[in-house]
């Protein structure tokens, strides 16, 4: 039996009041994350994945934001929590790693100071020496060579990959239970990406961290994720285990994502496959399934929004939002001998 979830998100809705009307960035999503589990949230820009992550941390709170639903961290409701209480959780029980390590550190302070700041915000019993020693320990834990000396460097003296390691070290400063990594490898080159993912995977195993990994890159997902949430236009369109998503994908959007992965073990296609069209404006969503306008398999039923539910008999907890029958899906996702989304006529 898997352990009880550390984080439970139920029917989370995040909207922003804009001049063009209410922009529903996240429209009713549900998921659980357990200790030692990596949940990947996948989607294009604007699918609501980063907003989801930042809402868990309370970073989207503002006058214009409408946040509804429930986010429970270990039995504590975060959506309703006062700002001060959320602030105490941030950096202490929830650590966050951001996309661009180049700009995510303040350029004017030494790294040891910035890491110490994270500790001082939550513990007042730590001396400067303690915090410095802890920063060195953290640098060693994330594999930064010569940690004792490098910890007093400025951010600009670090390379991108090293900065991302330092960022992870800072997120881990107070041993959080939940780590949210928002596109942690997007700004890095491929060899460094692999190292950072390996580090995240190792930390997840060694420390039983619950990890939410936000990315648009299915290659990254394949490396480390246990469960996968595919988001499109603010909604989850498919949810399942890593294997289910990669080998038995149910939603045409997931097929499209898988189909547009470049494969080195197959002959090179003339053109790299892509999903035609662009994501819809969140201010003007189509009725029914939001992927409908880009979907070559659209039929009459699609003007009605399908619920996210288990539609395959063989695997429970594998949910999707598509009206096609299981047989149709199995047949239609085969494009040129592999999974993909066929080009529209």
């Amino acid at each position, binding site marked *: 039996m898997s352990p009880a979830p550390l984080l439970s998100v139920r029917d989370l809705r995040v909207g922003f009041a804009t001049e063009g009307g209410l922009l529903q960035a996240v429209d009713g999503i549900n998921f659980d994350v357990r200790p030692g589990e990596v949940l990947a949230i996948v989607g294009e820009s604007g699918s609501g994945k980063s907003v989801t992550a930042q809402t868990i941390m309370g970073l989207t709170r503002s006058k214009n934001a409408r946040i509804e639903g429930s986010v429970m961290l270990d039995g504590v409701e975060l959506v309703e929590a006062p700002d001060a209480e959320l602030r105490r959780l941030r950096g202490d029980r929830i650590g966050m790693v951001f996309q661009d390590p180049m700009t995510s550190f*303040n350029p004017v302070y030494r790294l040891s100071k910035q890491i110490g700041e994270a500790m001082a*915000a939550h513990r007042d019993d730590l001396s400067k020496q303690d915090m410095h020693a802890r920063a060195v320990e953290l640098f060693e834990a994330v594999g930064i060579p010569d940690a004792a000396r490098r910890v007093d460097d400025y951010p600009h003296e670090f390379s991108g990959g090293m900065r991302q390691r330092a960022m992870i070290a800072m997120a881990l400063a107070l041993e959080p239970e939940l780590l949210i990594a928002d596109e942690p490898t997007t700004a890095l080159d491929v060899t460094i990406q692999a190292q950072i993912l390996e580090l995240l995977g190792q930390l997840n195993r060694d420390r039983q961290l619950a990890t939410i990994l936000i990315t648009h890159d299915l290659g990254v997902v394949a490396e480390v994720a246990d469960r996968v949430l595919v988001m499109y236009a603010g909604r989850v369109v498919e949810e399942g285990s890593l294997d289910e998503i990669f080998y038995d994908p149910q939603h045409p959007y997931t097929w499209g994502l898988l189909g547009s992965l470049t494969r080195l073990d197959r002959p090179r296609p003339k053109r790299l496959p892509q999903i035609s069209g662009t994501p819809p404006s969140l201010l003007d969503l189509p009725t029914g399934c939001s992927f409908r306008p880009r979907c070559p398999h659209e039929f009459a039923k699609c003007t009605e929004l399908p619920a996210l539910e288990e539609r395959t008999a063989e695997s429970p907890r594998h949910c999707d939002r598509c009206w096609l029958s299981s047989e149709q899906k199995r047949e239609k996702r085969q494009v040129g001998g592999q999974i993909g989304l066929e080009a529209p006529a």
Partner: protein
Amino acid sequence: MARFIVRRLVGMVFVLFVVSLIVFLIFNVIPNSPPAQRLAGKNATPVLVKSIEEEWGFDDSLPQQYLTMMKKVFTGELIQYSPRVPVDERIVEGIPATLSLSIGAAIIWLFFGLVLGYYSALRAGGKLDKFLTGLSIAGISIPVFLLAPVLIYFLAEKLKIFPNGFYVPLTEDPWEWFTHLVLPWFTVAILSIGFYSRVLRSNMLDVMNEDYVRTARAKGLSERQVMLRHVLRNSLIPIITLFGLDFGATVAGTAIITETLFNIEGVGLYAAESIAKLELPPIMGVTLYGAFFVVFINALVDIAYAYLDPRVRLGTSAQ
């Protein structure tokens, strides 16, 4: 850091050399009339003109003339001819008043500019912000020559809260020094208060969108810590540059108008009087003195800048 300072000071000497060359060219070489005639002043006797011509060596080659001029500047032999007073003596006499005025005004404008800018940025778009914006635009728009007479008329003449002009040395009577300078200080400061609060506000609004500010929030810092340590701290870097230029310009320029309006016997008033009487040696001296201050303060500011922004110290840009 030490290397940076040395490099900056060497640069400063070079800039001053170029400034002195330009002064030499403008005053002694370019004008199409005998330089001795102009140096002597409006109603000079032929004897005086003749002696100046010999003294300054106007028959020598240009490099030699330049050296003669610089020798005069450095040895205190640069004198005004009617009445015969060494220029450097007059400048040194005026410096305490000018610095009292400039430094006091700078403290006032930095303090109010930063405080108003900070709160304006925190409440961006709100009523307080709109009010402060209006106030600073008004401050920026009022010309000094209008503001000073208005202040003098209402606060000094009518209400008699402050004395009307003149300078009392700090060593003589600190309280009198202070009360005499309040109006001139604000006269100089008001434009800059408006300007600095606008600049700080927009810097802060830019910095608030930086990724590292989001990181600071994600670490669980309080809103106040985020604002002061991350947003304000990084927004001050461009303000320092601005301050270097403005402070130098105040000592060397703005003081001329304000000192004249308030009858403060500083370097600025001396410059204004010399210009009115077309006395070249003092103008030359004051120009060099002003250039020295602007360059010197900018060197100091660059050093402060390196302290505030570690990326400058190493001579490498960000990233």
